[in-house]
């Protein structure tokens, strides 16, 4: 084995590695990892429907918040007959929080995302993340754009494409995990 063989081996190895990274099986986050809610189509399922300013509110927290009054009502009704039911005040919100976290991380993985503004479909740049339907819901990373007869067709990473009328405003998003 000569030095030329070694150089040739590492050259081919680097080329293959570059091809694999460039192929981009799907959209990537800024740190190079895949979004948790990535689906086979290349679209990303997201969770969360409430955002104060630039801070999204975790739906797991909302689930815990919803479980608290339910636990309070159960305790108020049953504490005289079953005193141990008082533990529900702490247990039920915790179960709601954990259940939602389990759902969005294991059963139906979804990514957290925040809205960062709007832009006309004509001005959306490649690599941007956009909401497909409104202010919440699935997001996709733009791979290319093409305009034809008043319609702008965006093709997303993964191969899915969709068209909007020129001038339609889309919500830009930032995928967090």
């Amino acid at each position, binding site marked *: 084995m000569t030095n030329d063989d070694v150089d040739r081996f590492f050259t081919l190895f680097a080329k293959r590695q570059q091809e694999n990274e460039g192929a981009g099986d799907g959209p990537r986050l800024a740190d190079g990892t895949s979004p948790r809610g990535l689906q086979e189509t290349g679209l990303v399922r997201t969770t969360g429907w409430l*955002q104060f300013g630039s801070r999204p509110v975790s739906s797991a927290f909302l689930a815990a918040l919803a479980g608290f009054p339910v636990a309070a009502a*159960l305790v108020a009704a049953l504490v005289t007959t079953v005193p141990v039911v008082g533990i529900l005040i702490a247990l039920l919100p915790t179960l709601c929080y954990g259940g939602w976290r389990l759902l969005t991380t294991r059963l139906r993985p979804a990514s957290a995302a925040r809205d960062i503004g709007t832009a006309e479909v004509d001005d959306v740049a490649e690599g941007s993340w956009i909401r497909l339907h*409104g202010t919440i819901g699935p997001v996709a990373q733009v791979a290319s754009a093409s305009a034809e007869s008043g319609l702008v067709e965006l093709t997303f990473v993964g191969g899915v494409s969709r068209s909007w009328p020129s001038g339609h405003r889309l919500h830009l998003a930032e995928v967090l995990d």
Partner: protein
Amino acid sequence: MDGTLAAGPVRGWWWRSTQAQRLAVAGVGAVLGLALLIGAFAWMPTSGPPQAAPPLTPVAPIPTIAATSTTTTTVTSTTTVTTTTTSTVDTTTTTTTPATTTVTTTPQLPPPITFDPPITTIEPTTTTDDDVQYGVRAGTPCAPEGARGMTLLGVSVVCTAGSSGKLKWRRV
């Protein structure tokens, strides 16, 4: 496609709704849920189906509670002690007879409940079975002369004529 790109009507509306609309939906849902929960517990029967009220019956007079009561408690204990020694000479067996103790207690009961009769104005009643008119009032007119009477306070009076000649009940 799993609906992510082509959402159904409900999910599509939810995704396209504004944040205020979503908060309104969540608030209404929370209020309805709590109302149903509270309502379910508020009208939950505590025990069995409701039963018809018993028919009304006349109130019986309040009985007088007996002032004394006697309770007899009998305590019986039997103890048998057997002692056996290994000596070849003697074997001792001791048996005690049963002890019987009788305890008699008289608990202190509250005094019987008594009711004062309502205060009413009793008109003088006249009874002539034994020629004595009961319930008369001294100084009031009476008849016939010489009749005997008894006031409410138990004072014997006689119907006699005074200096004016009028018959009145007067003390004997």
